[in-house]
Structures are given as C-alpha cells and as structure tokens.
C-alpha cells in the first residue's frame, strides 16, 4: 500500500493507493478519484472509524458537501460528510483496469484455436 499526499501523480490504476486529504484541494481530488473508481474504497474518518463501499456520487457546491456510497451489506446508500474524511484508500479491485484490447482479443481467439 503506498501513500500519495495529493493525486497529482496519476497512476494507471488507483488500486492499492491511499490519498491523504490534508487540505481542501487534496480532499476534493481524492473524492473525485474515489467517485470515478470502479471498485470499493475505504473511507477513513477523522473520528478514527472507517467505512468500505462503492462511492457513486459527490454532492458539492452546497454548505455541507457529502458523498454517497453503497456498502456491500446494505440496500440503501450511505452518506459521509466530506469534512469528516481523513483518508481515502482504493482498497477494492479496480474492475475497469487490466483488461486491455490485447487481452480481450487473446481471450476471444483461444476457443478458435482449440
């Protein structure tokens, strides 16, 4: 697991990375990457607690911005206030990564060859 203080160094996948949110810009970037990430993330709160889920929405431009996420074992979405977030960890598998066209073509060709 590697820490990134900000999201300026954009890796091919965020899987396994952690983003600290020690200023407003870093917090906003971390949340945007979490919203764009096609895997579960672990949200560490300033209280010391954490939640793990799939972040699908970020409501900003309002007095108390928040994110919405689905936790694996809950049917209704959960809400986390952005100001409560201390760190974002891209802990789940990045389901959109590592499936290059070459991989797909190879996979498609295998049944043809056998």
């Amino acid at each position, binding site marked *: 697991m590697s820490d990134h203080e900000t999201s300026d160094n954009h890796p091919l996948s965020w899987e396994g990375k952690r983003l600290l949110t020690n200023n407003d810009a870093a917090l906003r970037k971390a949340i945007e990457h979490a919203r764009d990430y096609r895997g579960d993330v672990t949200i560490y709160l300033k209280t010391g607690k954490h939640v793990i889920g799939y972040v*699908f*929405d970020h*409501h900003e431009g309002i007095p108390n911005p928040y994110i919405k996420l689905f936790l*694996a074992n809950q049917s209704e979405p959960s809400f986390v206030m952005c100001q409560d977030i201390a760190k974002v960890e891209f802990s789940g598998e990045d389901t959109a990564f590592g*499936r290059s066209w070459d991989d797909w073509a190879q996979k498609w060709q295998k049944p043809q060859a056998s």
Partner: protein
Amino acid sequence: MAVPISQMYTVSQYALSNHIRGIKRYPLVLMLEPLFRCNLECAGCGKIQYPDHILNRRLSPEQCWTAADECGAPIVSIPGGEPLIHPEMPAIVEGLVNRKKYVYLCTNAILLERKIQDYTPSKYLTFSIHMDGLKEEHDHAVCRDGVYDVAVKAIRAALAKGFRVTTNTTLFDDAEPLRVRRFFDEMMELGVEGMMISPGYSYDKAPDQQSFLKRDRTRSLFSQLLTQRKRTWQFNQSPLFLEFLMGKRNYECTPWGNPTYNIFGWQRPCYLLQEGYVSTFRELMEGTEWERYGTGRHDQCRDCMVHCGYEASAVKDTFGSWGGFFGTVRATLFPNAV
C-alpha cells in the same frame, strides 16, 4: 415502414403537444437500467465494470414503474446489463406495457429462448437484439464465439411467437461497409421489423479504447453504409438521425432526450456520462447545467454522435420546424435522394 403507425402517432402527438405548449426540454426515451450484471463482457462496453455487490443490485418493479411515471416519456428502453437476468423483468415489462409505454427490451438474446414464455406479444413490446455485425464481427465484438448463432435462433423463435423484434448495432472503427451492408441484408431476411444503428461511444471504462469512431470517420462510414441503401432495409429510428450520421445534417446534442435511471438514481447528464445522480426526475431536468454538455462544450462529448444524444435532436427537428418535417417525409419516402 419500420415503426408501426400507432407508435409513430403516439410519439408525434407527444412531441407536438410539448412543442405547442412551449416546453423546451422534454424526454423522448427513458433509458431504464434495472441492473448492471451481464452474461457477456463486450470489449466496447463501459457499463458493467463494478464490484460484485453493485452488480448484484436490482431495481424493483415498483422503482421501474415510478421512474417511467415520473419521466413521462412514451418510449422506455431497457438496456443494462442483461435485462433477461433480472428475475422480475416480466413483471417490470408488464407494468410498463399496462402504462402503454413502448418498451424496447435490449438483450444479447442468450437467454431469450429460455425466457420467452414469460412474455406476451404486444405492439408495446419489442425485443431489441444486440447484433454488432455478421457472425465473425459480432462474436468478436462480444468476445465470445457462438453468440451470433444463438441470437439468430432466438430472433427466429421470437418472430415465430409473434413478438416485435428489432436489432441494435454499435459500429466501431474497424467496421467494413460492404460486410455491414451484407449484415443489413441478413437481418432483414430474418424478418426483423427494423434495425437500429449507432456509432460506439468511447466510455473511459471500456477495454477497447482504440476502436472508437471520430466524427469525420463516423460520417464517412455511415455515408458508405447508407448511400444507395436497399428498399428492403428498414431502420427503426429517425431518418433525420441517419442523415446526421451521414454528415448531411448538423445537430446539437439533446442530453435530456434520453434520461437514464438506474440503481444509483437519475444519472447526470446523460446515458453515457456519469457526473452524478439525483433522486427525482424533476431534479435532473431542473438542476442540471445542460449548457455544459455537447460537442465543443465538454471534453467527453467531443466525438460523440450516439443516438441517445442526437436522435432526440432529430425528432425535435421533425416536429419543431417545417424544414424538419418535410425533411423527414422526404427522407422516409426517398432515402436515397441527394
């Protein structure tokens, strides 16, 4: 005539009444995504890359009907994911048909023969079968050998039972015009009511990023496909949209024309971009900064010419101006006129 008169009448009446009442933004097709789980992993699809607990979520029939009522669009398209995986899909469809919505159930047809007895033929229900070309191209696009043959068999079975059947085809950069034209022949010979075609959209989550069409290439490809088209070919879409794809017309995107509702809520701003979600259709229509989207206004809209943004523009043109109306009549009766 690819689209039945009753459907044309319903859509015309709906569009005209909105136009006459001066309603600037109204939806035409609700894109209802009751699940993201699919039984294929197509290379051009950016819809299904989610963790398992997201793929296992489903919209309930009540949620689907509420969305259709809220939205009010006369047509409901059900993509996904693969809708036939949803155990309550027959109930969802029945509820929509009871509301007199024209339902396009978009399926790869792998499960169609097994599930078809759960559905009742109706003028309101169309199975829209995903077919991306002749056997070789289709199996390649869906990354699984044999799917084309399964789909053809399912199309025959659905037609034999009296269902409306159309095809939906996404074309990528490697499309060969002559083979696509042969594909049109094959589909019409099968007896489908009509075909729907669209260029692919470059989802940033899709595995194949190299094969998406740029605008000039899109116009060139669709010109080659649709110039001197055969009288037997029927397209289940706006003739002006086809002219737009051929580069004969210019339209601005109408992102609110095909609003999308799925397990996350109403998706902002359109079927292809995921910039956020709201709880109600009203919030979507009134709270979205629509002027931010479209070619030249948003980076991810740059090369998009996809039906979910531009077919509604074409339909609005038909009912919003005499030029559009007569253009539609001409393009319908004389599709090969220059």
